């Protein structure tokens, strides 16, 4: 099926390049994962001292990391609770506005995606201090939501563009109340997108560092805790966290391929 627009030599060069690029992407992750199983107390693959699972046990007993994990989940759930309604509301307004008047609102709502993460963290930190709220989990939720809501809005917008509005209009003509139409037609149509948006929001929030580190104050999430440990020295326990991330991602990716591959066949 591939188009033979290049000479074989050019194809070979391109293939080798793509191969090297994939190596560049995956080799560091492989090294990091392998070191998690090394008995050597400093994360290494060159000084192999035998296979061990002791770092997994150490992680299970690491109270600060576990608390960080819990905090990460709390923040991510908070972000979902804030950004999904906000993104939905923004998308609903934008689809009903004319192109011209919508553009300004659109620019404002999308701007956080294009703003450096540290700036979102700083501005939220300053804003909430005015109300006597110091940096912490709440401010982290607010700071992250400012841009994650934009992502949610973009997903909802894409879905709403494919909406058949006649369905809602027909229901209204037949005398259904607005709230009923919204609940029975609009929301079910948007439900799959809401789910996708929630997953995206959770992942974005969970792995966010640059915004969170400014907004989190004295609290910590899994990611900020890992970062502050890395400043003082390396430990195989961090590699274990890495392995868990890699495995989860690979599982999700395979599930995606299986699901996506089926209807195509």
């Amino acid at each position, binding site marked *: *099926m*591939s*188009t033979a*627009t*290049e000479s074989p030599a*050019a*194809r070979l060069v*391109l293939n080798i390049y*793509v191969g090297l690029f*994939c190596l560049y*992407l*995956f080799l*560091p*992750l492989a*090294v*990091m994962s392998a070191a998690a199983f090394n008995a050597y107390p400093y994360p*290494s693959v*060159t000084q192999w001292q035998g296979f061990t699972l002791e770092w997994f046990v150490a992680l299970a007993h690491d109270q600060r990391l576990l608390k960080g994990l819990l905090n990460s989940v709390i923040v991510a759930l908070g972000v979902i609770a*804030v950004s999904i*309604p*906000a993104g939905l*509301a*923004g998308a*609903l307004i934008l689809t*009903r506005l004319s192109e011209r008047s919508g553009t300004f*609102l659109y620019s*404002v*709502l*999308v*701007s*956080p*995606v*294009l*703003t*450096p993460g*540290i700036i979102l963290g*700083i*501005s939220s*930190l*300053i*804003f909430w201090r005015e109300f006597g709220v110091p940096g912490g989990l709440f401010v982290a939720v*607010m700071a992250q939501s400012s841009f994650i809501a934009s992502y949610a809005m973009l997903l909802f917008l894409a879905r709403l563009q494919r909406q058949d509005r006649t369905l809602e209009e027909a229901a209204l003509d037949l005398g259904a109340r*607005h*709230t009923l*139409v*919204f609940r029975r037609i609009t929301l079910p149509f948007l439900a799959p997108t809401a789910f996708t948006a929630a997953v995206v929001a959770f992942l974005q929030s969970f792995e966010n*560092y*640059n915004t969170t580190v400014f907004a989190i104050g004295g609290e910590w999430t899994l*990611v900020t805790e890992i*970062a502050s440990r*890395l*400043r003082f020295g*390396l430990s195989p326990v*961090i590699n274990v966290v*890495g392995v868990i*991330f890699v495995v989860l*991602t690979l599982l999700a*990716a395979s599930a*995606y*391929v299986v699901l996506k591959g089926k209807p195509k066949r």
Partner: protein
Amino acid sequence: MASLARAYGKLLAALICAITVAWVLVLIVVPIGAMLEQSLWWRESGGDITLSIDRLYNEIAVIELDANTATDPAKRAAIESTLEQKRTEIATLEAQETNPPKMYGLANFTRMSSLHLYIFVRTIFYALLVTLLAFIVCYPIAYAVALASGPRKTVILTVALIVPYAINELLRVYAWLMILDYRGVINGLLAWAGFIDLDAREWIPFLENPSAVFLAMIYTYVLFMVFPMVNTLETLDRNQIEAARDLGASTWRIHRRVIIPHAKPGIAVGCIMTFMLSAGSYSVPVIMTRGQGGDWFSQLVYRQFYESNNWNMGSAYAVSLLVVCTAFILIMMRLFGVGLRDIAK
């Protein structure tokens, strides 16, 4: 607004508007405004006030001595009154010292030391370089994924790209830290091959070189360049390439006249994202250098907030960064002729 009310009813329309307004105000506009405001004032907590207070205390001590030795009641009363005067002066100065008056102006921006200004300029320059390198590295990849492979291979490649992209940014940086550290993989291999001796601390200090930050930064943000480019290239009709080739165009010419013009919006978005992420990156420099390589501007901002506790100065630094990023976005949009709606696709 009217069409919103017609579609969803007054109640829901009002709710939708309220949520959107709250989002715009509470999460976006007012916080940025607050940061801007914070950057425009400072408190004059000069050492001058402290000095004057110290001087006054000394004077009082001398006068008190006089007061004790004075015998003439008139003279004594005069001394008492000056004493009282000095004491009130101290009280006002001390009030100023603990709660200095707000001064508005641009001093937070102009006061940036030459070292910090140098770091600022260097960070912008490095971010531009990261963007350029990422583009050069990515272009063939985007081309291969979008145009040069069959559908099956495309799915595999896309997944191969998404997996590292989905893994936490910090862990990706950490992987490079492991590789380049003093006792890292590369030094380990060199020691194993007998070139260096780790026990004699003869390692090569990769981490003290700015290129270590570079390498990890490109690794971390390269995929933000790949995906937008793939997205636009996928919409290119391959027949256009065939036609150009049949008409005798060279490969170089096809890329320059057919493929790159088509990929323009994707290139703009990729460059904007990569520049924005690397200029504002805190994670990569803080982990890779661990205080040994040169600072990145974001580290200075962090220290202003969490170490010097000078939020006004920190805000001014953050605003400077925001201005540069906004300018970059506007320039790219102009140069590539793309609108904001193309960017967010």
